[in-house]
């Protein structure tokens, strides 16, 4: 009898302690380690993502499921994967961050992936775009995109809209190779031919000779992918060489006409056709009435918070990344352990400023619409105005409906 009483007391005590510590865990603030390039050559990218993250928190408060959200921002300068890894480790071990987020470029995300795996910490990759990233750790969820996700639809669009012959120009680094391979494959599979291809060094002082070479080859169109920072120099040379006058269409990956630099490109850029999963012109421009009130309120709030800046696709990935974290925490009642987080995030869907999107439960990459856009001048500013849409594209660039066989 006495032993039974003692046992019962012990059980009660243990339960009390357990529930107390559980309650304590939930009262503890939830720290999100945000690693982004805030200085260096990719500063523009980090600033956009961070502005998106801040905007979401401003609009939705910093309390979720009874836990206060604390943001710990680390600047990895964008060029040093080992720095990214060190910050990720430091955030998890010393600062008790329960979620890692950000990651501006693919090599940086690759470097941080083992940290997420070992610590079982969810890692929300916002803006790195290599296809293989989400395979590097079971705890990676992507709120952004894969590069091929919007390259493949562009190739398909070109093939189906009277473009027969394309010359490709990409920057000589991994994403450039991905883009070139994906574009060439989809384009030739759909009946197009590749007139030639050229890879330019990452630090190319002068695009003139390449532009001339393409002009002399006289293809129907040129497909270009260079980092946003190189785009002005490229566009200048295309314009100076009169490629448009020679009847050569310019079709690019959306990064080339990024909103950050678009106005600076000047009239050289007008008429350029690009593909991307977002454009602030998605009914966000006066005089354009379409289906996304989400985007109108997003762009307005963003421009009010960040005078002189326009939101680009990177800002949206930051905004959606925070939405993903907030929604998951609500679903798990504040628990952010890697397995619970990923389980809750899989299949989650919502309407983003970019349109409807969801997290593919198999790949943990987003499924989203891809827009074909054209640069137009509206009221003194240049905009990427969408005129065609490929709905629900998976991380390989294939529309989901088609993949299922509908």
């Amino acid at each position, binding site marked *: 009898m006495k032993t039974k009483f003692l046992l019962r007391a012990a059980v009660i005590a243990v339960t009390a302690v357990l529930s107390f510590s559980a309650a304590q865990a939930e009262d503890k603030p939830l720290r999100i380690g945000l690693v982004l390039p805030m200085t260096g*050559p990719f*500063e523009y990218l980090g600033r956009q993502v961070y502005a998106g993250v801040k905007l979401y928190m401003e609009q939705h408060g910093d309390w979720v499921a009874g836990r206060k959200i604390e943001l710990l921002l680390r600047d990895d300068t964008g060029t040093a994967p080992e720095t990214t890894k060190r910050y990720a480790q430091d955030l998890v071990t010393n600062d008790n961050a329960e979620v890692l987020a950000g990651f501006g470029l693919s090599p940086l995300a690759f470097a941080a992936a083992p940290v997420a795996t070992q610590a079982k910490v969810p890692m929300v990759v916002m803006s790195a775009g290599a296809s293989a990233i989400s395979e590097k750790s079971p705890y990676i969820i992507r709120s952004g995109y894969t590069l091929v996700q919007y390259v493949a639809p562009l190739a398909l669009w070109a093939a189906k809209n009277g473009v027969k012959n394309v010359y490709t120009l990409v920057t000589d680094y991994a994403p450039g190779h991905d883009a070139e391979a994906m574009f060439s494959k989809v384009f030739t599979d759909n009946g197009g031919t590749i007139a030639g291809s050229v890879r330019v060094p990452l*630090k190319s002082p002068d695009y003139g*000779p390449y532009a001339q*070479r393409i002009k002399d080859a006289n293809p129907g169109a040129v497909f270009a992918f260079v980092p946003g920072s*190189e785009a*002005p120099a490229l566009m200048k040379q295309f314009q*100076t060489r009169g490629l448009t006058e020679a009847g050569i269409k310019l079709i690019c990956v959306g990064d080339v006409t990024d909103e950050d630099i678009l106005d600076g490109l*000047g009239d050289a850029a007008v008429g350029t056709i690009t593909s991307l999963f977002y454009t602030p012109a998605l009914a966000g421009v006066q005089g354009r009435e379409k289906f996304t009130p989400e985007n109108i309120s997003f762009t307005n709030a963003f421009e009010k918070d960040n005078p002189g800046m326009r939101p680009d696709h990177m800002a949206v990935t930051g905004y959606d990344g925070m939405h993903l974290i907030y929604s998951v925490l609500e679903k798990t009642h504040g628990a952010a352990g890697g397995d619970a987080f990923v389980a809750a995030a899989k299949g989650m869907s919502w309407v983003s400023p970019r349109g409807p999107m969801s997290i593919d439960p198999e790949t943990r990459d987003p499924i989203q619409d891809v827009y074909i856009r054209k640069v137009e001048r509206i009221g003194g500013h240049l905009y990427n105005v969408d005129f065609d849409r490929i709905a629900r594209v998976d991380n390989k660039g294939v529309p989901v409906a088609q993949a299922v066989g509908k």
Partner: protein
Amino acid sequence: MLTVLFDGIATGALLFLSSVGLSVTLGVMNFVNLAHGVFAMTGGYVAVVLLNRWGVPFLATLPAAFAASAGLGVVVERLFYRKLYDAGALEQVLFTTGLVFAAMAAAAFLMGSQHQIIQLPAFLAGQFHLFKGFDLGVYRLFLIVFCGCVALALQLVLSRTRFGSRLRAAVDNATVANALGINVGRLFAVTFAVGCGLAGLGAALGVEILNLDPSFPLKFLVYFLIVVAAGGTGTISGPLLASLVLGICDVAGKYYVPDIGAFIIYGVMVAMLIWRPHGLFGRRAVR
């Protein structure tokens, strides 16, 4: 083919303008000035700020770029370089390398790390269409004419003016020139300032073609050094010819063999140096 040649000459002209000053400091004053690109970058940024923020016409920004770089040159020369003239090459290298990194950080802080974009005036944009297969970029034509005039003016100053003859005397033998009452220190200071000014002018003209960002001093240091090494020192025609050869090879390489185009200029430099170890018109070093 002709277009490639033409573009190459334009690139070469730009290279010449930016690096002729270095051939003076490095070759004549025997000062290892790895920070030459800093003065060039200053001119470039001055032109960008004037043009984009204050709406100054493009042509009017060029003298300003020259003056700013020359002014910075005078200040840096008087404050720092003068003290290092007698120091060893290692000290000079360390100091000027430090200056490069400090300037890059300052430029990133003040101007941001993105490429600077300028809009050329309408009369400099576009292309002439001479005949089929030969298009002339108006801006590149302007560059060639402009740099040609500068090269000519420099040659005339060196060979026809009192300043020029003093400079040549000081270069040949500084000690004797000093003894004859020529103020060699001031002469070199002025020459240095002009060299910096020309570099700034070159960068201001090059914003359109070369991509101006905070890494400019390091990115183009290689080009500058190649011009000086291949062109030899002490003449105007040496660096001019070297710049043109490099420009043409660079452009032609990228046009015809894009896969290895970026490496062609190094090959050309090695070939030139094997053929003429002291530069195209270089004289055997006296010291």
